[in-house]
């Protein structure tokens, strides 16, 4: 066994060396989070327990999960058609469209927030029209949702696109020769075969929404989502007040994503 490892090390040194270099990243991430969890949960759990009883904090975390869920629903409704259209067609300017989809990923999120604010605030170009219909974005749930949607949909669309691209288009063509309309070929063949990509895209998009701060805080400081609340408490009460909320959010997110990954894997 020992000889075997030695032999492999000599034959394929890169695999070993790169693994050890790369492992630094894992140590960095786990160390950062574990340090915080350790302090809060083991060293001085009193603050953490107090947070669990703080209605304002619990509500804020609930709002965050809910708003990001709504943003993900929007991403799914509009993202599936967009992803499918891009995956199945070759057209002039396709890569321009693909670059536009990625814009929210590359611009600073406070910039995204300001852009959204100028469009959707009470006096904004579009915001005033929606205001007349009774839908307000500035400092409202819809403001939170739209900001989360803006920054998170690219993750869903790109994943869905990869999913549709990975489905051999001949499957749908054969389905049509067997008597399926284009709609049926889409939802009986292309859609189920892309499920793993669609689900992982939706999970990533949801996670991205929960983690958003910059875009949300500009358009909707209130109602306070978890990241805004953590920032507020950090400014007013320092680490002592902000860290327990952060730990609770980490734990909740981690458990939920683990759960979602597990059920989606079973389905895939």
């Amino acid at each position: 066994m020992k000889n075997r490892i030695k032999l492999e090390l000599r034959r394929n040194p890169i695999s070993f060396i790169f693994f050890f270099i790369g492992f630094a990243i894992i140590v960095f991430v786990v160390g950062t989070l574990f340090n915080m969890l350790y302090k809060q949960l083991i060293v001085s759990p009193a603050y953490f327990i107090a947070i669990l009883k703080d209605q304002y904090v619990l509500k804020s975390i609930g709002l965050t999960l809910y708003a990001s869920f709504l943003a993900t629903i929007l991403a799914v409704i509009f993202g599936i058609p967009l992803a499918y259209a891009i995956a199945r067609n070759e057209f002039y300017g396709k890569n321009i469209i693909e670059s536009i989809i990625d814009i929210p990923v590359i611009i600073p999120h406070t910039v995204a927030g300001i852009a959204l604010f100028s469009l959707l605030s009470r006096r904004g170009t579009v915001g005033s029209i929606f205001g007349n219909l009774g839908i307000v974005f500035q400092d409202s749930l819809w403001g939170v949702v739209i900001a989360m949607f803006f920054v998170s949909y690219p993750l869903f669309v790109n994943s869905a696109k990869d999913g549709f691209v990975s489905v051999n288009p001949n499957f749908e063509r054969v389905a049509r020769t067997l008597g399926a309309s284009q709609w049926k070929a889409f939802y009986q063949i292309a859609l189920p075969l892309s499920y793993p990509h669609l689900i992982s895209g939706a999970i990533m998009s949801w996670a991205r929404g929960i983690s958003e701060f910059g875009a949300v805080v500009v358009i909707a400081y209130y109602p306070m989502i978890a990241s805004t609340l953590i920032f507020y408490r950090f400014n007013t009460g320092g680490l002592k007040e902000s860290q327990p909320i952060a730990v609770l959010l980490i734990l909740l997110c981690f458990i939920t994503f683990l759960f979602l990954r597990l059920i989606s894997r079973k389905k895939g």
Partner: protein
Amino acid sequence: MIRIENLSNNWGTFTLNNISLEIKEGEYFVILGPTGAGKTLLLELIVGLYIPNEGNIFIDGKDITYEVPEKRGLGFLYQDYSLFPHLSVKKNIEYGMKLRNISKNEIDSKIKELSNILKIEHLMHRDTTTLSGGEQQKVALARALAINPKVLLLDEPFSALDENTKSKLISEMKDLHRKEGITFIHVTHSQEEAILLADRIGIMMNGTVVQVGNPDEIFYKPISKEIAKFVKIENIWEGKVIEKKEEELIVDVNGKQIVALSDHFKVGQGVRLIIRPEDIILGKGNTSARNEFKGKVISVIKHGFYHIVRVDCGFQVEAAVTKQSVENLNIKEGKDIHIFFKATALQVIKR
């Protein structure tokens, strides 16, 4: 049964150019041509996955050129078989029938019938991703035939299989055609498949159908130099008609006079003579054959179970002979030899 009129398509990668074709009811029709000739596109136009720029397609007299694929009722088999990977073998075969709201009893009896014909009963509950190439082909055939198609279109159905599976399945395909009694249209670049399966063959080159005929016509009487080359005839001699008596032509090829039969040509006209290497006989000379020439062996090459002998007799001749005759006649490079062939074996085309 299927009539294609002046079909042209000039967008996308392949171009089809003014194709006209008639395929008869119950026929096994092979579209044979080199890669890139547009064969698959022609099938996709017939089945309705694309629509042509010009021309029409009729089935049983009805114009279906612009009909959506799901209403055409034609069976289609892709080269990669395209079994739905998320459905079991049985669900794949049922797919088309379920879309037609056929009762469960009918579906079951049809599946029984097809799995019996194709010998795939044992595969019914398997996952399609675990099937071998040959098994995949049979399941795809069952799925296509389950909708009782008027025509079955096959796109290079044997190209994804190993040699042994291929030769076994080619003979089974012939049986299947006989049992089902429907029209098969089979696209391939393999002459072997065409010879073994076709009732008639359409040769397709550069986006158009250049010759249609039964296998003998295609392989012995190609109507152009390009087709002759494609069906692996190296004996293409250029000459000129110097004499004509009724159906009989005397053609001058590099100063040698060859007798051929055809009534389409005039004295003085340039022609090409084409003859398959199997129709050339080698011997010691002095037979009664009118086309007998003396020459020198240039090369002897072993080619599978026979030998290709190249002879220079003023013009270059390629003959396919058995190992036995190579030994009996002691054919060797540099030796003198006589070649013979029948006038009727020659195909005369215009130059």
